[in-house]
């Protein structure tokens, strides 16, 4: 957090779907080591924003810099940059035809061209980090939702990413499994890795975020440190949203 160099800069990023402006000019700077939590009502553009960072969703306007490098539409550059950005999805998206270990080693081997032994050692280290090294030889379908998501986190970590993106990582989980995933994420946040997390878990936002970003209708409405954000929101829309979710 002492570092002032930005890991990610978004400048007036727009994403236009037919008929909808999903991102309506978003600018955001994420410094190295920062943990940013993005919240907002559904359809506010928070997932689209995340998916624009690694261009799974092609932006229709604006500029993006990752670690000082401007994103172009060159596919080679995109593949290289994506290999440096980990992403964890709502529905895990593990590769069902591969074992847990192969899920984690495949990209290391074919993208980073690491030898098998090195990729496997790295995969086992990441599986230990998320607490399930004994599941290495299982098929993803044999694991619980929480375990699958932890494998997905290990898969992202194994690429040694500069930046980790989480797209509602606990939204598809049964309530009793949310905690184990959040604990892994919280531990990660404290290691100083740069993270952007889209979530509805306000407890996590309070505990882990350096800054909380509130989005609505494709725009960033408010951005503040968690204490200020939750205790003294400045914007009316933020207050309304917080009252709606905290009432439950």
């Amino acid at each position, binding site marked *: 957090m002492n570092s002032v160099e930005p890991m990610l800069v978004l400048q007036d990023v727009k994403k236009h779907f037919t008929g909808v402006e999903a991102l309506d000019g978003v600018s955001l700077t994420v410094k190295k080591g920062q943990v940013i939590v993005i919240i907002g009502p559904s359809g506010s553009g928070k997932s689209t924003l995340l998916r624009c960072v*690694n261009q*799974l969703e092609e932006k229709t306007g604006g500029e993006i810099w990752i670690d000082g490098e401007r994103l172009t539409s060159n*596919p080679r550059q995109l*593949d*290289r*940059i*994506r*290999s*440096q*950005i*980990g*992403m964890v*999805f709502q*529905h895990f*998206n*593990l*590769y*069902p*035809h591969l074992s847990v270990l192969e899920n984690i080693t*495949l*990209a290391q081997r*074919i*993208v*980073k061209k690491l030898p098998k032994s090195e990729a496997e050692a790295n995969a086992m280290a990441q599986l230990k980090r998320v607490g399930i090294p004994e599941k290495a030889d299982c*098929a993803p*379908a044999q694991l619980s939702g929480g375990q699958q998501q932890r494998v997905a986190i290990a*898969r*992202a970590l194994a*690429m040694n990413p500069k930046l980790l993106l989480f797209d509602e990582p606990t939204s598809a989980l049964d309530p009793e499994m949310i905690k184990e995933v959040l604990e892994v994420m919280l531990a990660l946040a404290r290691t100083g890795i740069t993270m952007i997390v889209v979530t509805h878990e306000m407890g996590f936002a309070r505990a882990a975020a350096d800054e909380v970003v509130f989005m609505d209708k494709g725009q960033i409405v408010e951005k503040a440190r968690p204490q200020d954000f939750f205790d003294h929101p400045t914007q009316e829309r933020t207050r309304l949203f917080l009252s709606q979710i905290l009432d439950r």
Partner: protein
Amino acid sequence: MIKDRSERIQLIKVRLRTFPWWMAGIALIAILTVVVILTEESYQDAFLFIKAGLSITISTTVISFLIALALGLVTGLGRISNNTFFRNLATLYVEIVRGIPMLVLIFFIAFVGVPGVVDGLNALVTRLSGSGLPGFGSSLFVLENDAVPMRTRAIVALSVTYGAFLAEIFRAGIQSIGRGQMEAARSQGMSYRQAMRYIILPQAIRNVLPALGNDFISMLKDSSLVSVLAVRDITQIARLYAGRSFEFREAYLTLAVLYLTMTVCLSFIMKIIERRIQKNEQR
């Protein structure tokens, strides 16, 4: 004791209801035919004559299917490609083949398509050797159209036809894999090609294996159409036999039972493979 007995009767009733009687029917037909072939001399003659075509029928089907698999995979990938040219080229091919009866396609490819391609190649060769480029001299000869055997033309026709069918199977298989798989692969830095090869296709092909098996069986049956090109498959030979001996019943019954035996055996093998795949997935 009485309850035990009624339960047993119930069980037998269920078994009788779920027993694959149709399979027993086919087995009965096959057995009866075998008995007839063994006992009646006229059937025996017909069988011995017609079975000479089996190797042509089977090899034509297998070779055509392998070529159709390659053609279908490439075309299927083209159908979902982002490249406008390849996508339209693939769709054009599929739509043309689907809109023409197979028999007409076989005539067309054998008597118009293949000669056309050969003439085109010949013109190219003549021009190249006339241009005096090194390497294109007397070593190349002009291919005579008559030199392309009908069996080769039949294989080309079957491959081109089934390539379009298999393309649709591959396309559907690829599209059955959730978008999340491609996104996960791309998010790790895999190229489109790598994601296809390592993530999408292995899952898609496993999903479409039953459909591919069905089309292989269809192709075995449709290979009978190549008899119109005088390729000596079992259908052609049965026609010859019937025409020569006027023993139509012997010829065509033997022919029908030969196809039936092959297709039923194949679908039985397919069921075993499918079951094995399902077991693997559950593991």
